[in-house]
């Protein structure tokens, strides 16, 4: 295995064009599991840890631009925590403190796992993914970015640069079901927001279908919303849980999520 360590975004994009098969690594918390269990043997990895443009976040006229290298621990800190509360709650459920110090939003997007904890809260907030190549950058709506289990819309020469989101300010929450009270991969998860300005109930689930999925209903349809969320899911049986349980749990989570957000 070889490594490329660019020192700027421009260099990173050039290298990605020259080596489209290079596997990007940021925090490493997903990729390293695959490497350690010998599931993946990439020829070249692209170490993004030294690219300053990917770090931190900024705000411009209400639009947040969150660098792909933002860690979960950073997403849990103020003022981001108040701006994107469901994302902060989701970040708190990721792995353990050590993993939250390393794992990044960009990594979660790149892996595009159905269980990616940051994805439901970002879907609820209509986030976009900014991707770039030498040819320029483009924005992809998150729901279009996630195309299948562990598959995203990134072209081989592109890198994930940032997440763009305009915080709705709507009451929102995130819940994740696991048989252990810390450090679990979601059996299923749900982010819920009640956006009175838009007149919408919004929910996005994880680990209950090939991709995390956003479900929207008019504000007035709160009663039927939990069933709508459950029916939108297409869960499977696996080592972490059964399809029937996942569907059931989503319904319960949706009821509770609405209750929390409507009370807020």
């Amino acid at each position, binding site marked *: *295995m*070889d*490594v*490329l*360590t*660019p020192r700027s975004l421009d*260099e990173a994009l*050039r*290298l990605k064009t*020259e*080596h489209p098969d*290079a596997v990007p*690594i940021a*925090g*490493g*918390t997903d990729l*390293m*599991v695959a*490497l*350690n*269990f010998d599931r993946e043997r990439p020829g*070249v*990895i692209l*170490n993004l*840890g*030294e690219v300053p443009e990917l770090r931190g976040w900024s705000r411009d006229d209400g639009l947040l631009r969150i660098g792909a290298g933002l860690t979960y*621990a950073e997403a849990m800190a103020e003022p981001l925590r108040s701006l994107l509360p469901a994302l902060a709650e989701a970040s708190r459920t990721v*792995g*353990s*403190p*050590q*993993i939250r*110090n*390393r794992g990044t939003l960009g990594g979660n997007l790149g892996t595009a796992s159905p269980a990616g904890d940051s994805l439901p809260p970002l879907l609820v907030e209509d986030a976009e993914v900014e991707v770039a190549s030498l040819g320029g950058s483009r924005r992809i709506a998150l729901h279009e970015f996630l195309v299948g289990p562990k598959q995203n819309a990134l072209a081989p020469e592109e890198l994930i640069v940032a997440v763009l989101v305009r915080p709705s300010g709507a009451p929102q929450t995130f819940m994740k079901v696991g048989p252990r009270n*810390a*450090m679990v991969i979601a059996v299923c998860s749900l982010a819920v927001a009640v956006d009175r300005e838009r007149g919408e109930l919004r929910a996005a689930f994880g680990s209950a279908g090939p991709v995390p999925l956003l479900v929207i209903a008019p504000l007035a349809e709160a009663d039927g919303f939990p069933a709508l969320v459950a029916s939108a899911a297409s869960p499977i049986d696996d080592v972490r849980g059964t399809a029937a349980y996942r569907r059931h749990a989503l319904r319960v989570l949706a009821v509770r999520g609405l209750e929390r957000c409507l009370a807020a």
Partner: protein
Amino acid sequence: MPEPVSEQTISVEINGETYEQEVEARKLLVHFIRDVVDLTGTHVGCDTGNCGACTVLMDGKTIKSCMLLAIQADGATITTVEGLAAGGELTPLQRAFSASHALQCGYCTPGMLLSAAYLLEQNPHPSEEEIRRGIQGNICRCTGYVNIVEAIKSVAEGGGA
């Protein structure tokens, strides 16, 4: 423009000493610490970032060193369990763990100590709940955590890790 390299020279400060070393791209940080620098107090328990036995401090924050390539630590400052008792003086946490049976087989202890030290640095007087939350990423299979929580609590109450 860099070319793909299978080895890269990195410079890492570990427990106050700087190691400049050519390492294979695929070498994990934990193996660099254990096999190259020969500090075997950092243990490998799971290979998946779960157990926390390989926890070290990198630039002041806890990380799991099996979830990192050594090359990603280039330029970083690392503290391992061997770096806690700098100058031979055990830290209050080390003394408390030893005195109050906060370990049995001891395999989790180095990682547990670093998570506890990080916790107390951020929050010198944590509640029991905050202690449990602080070490949730470190699995102990022997003790049931009771004495570990007690040991950390005793240090927090005594003031200072």
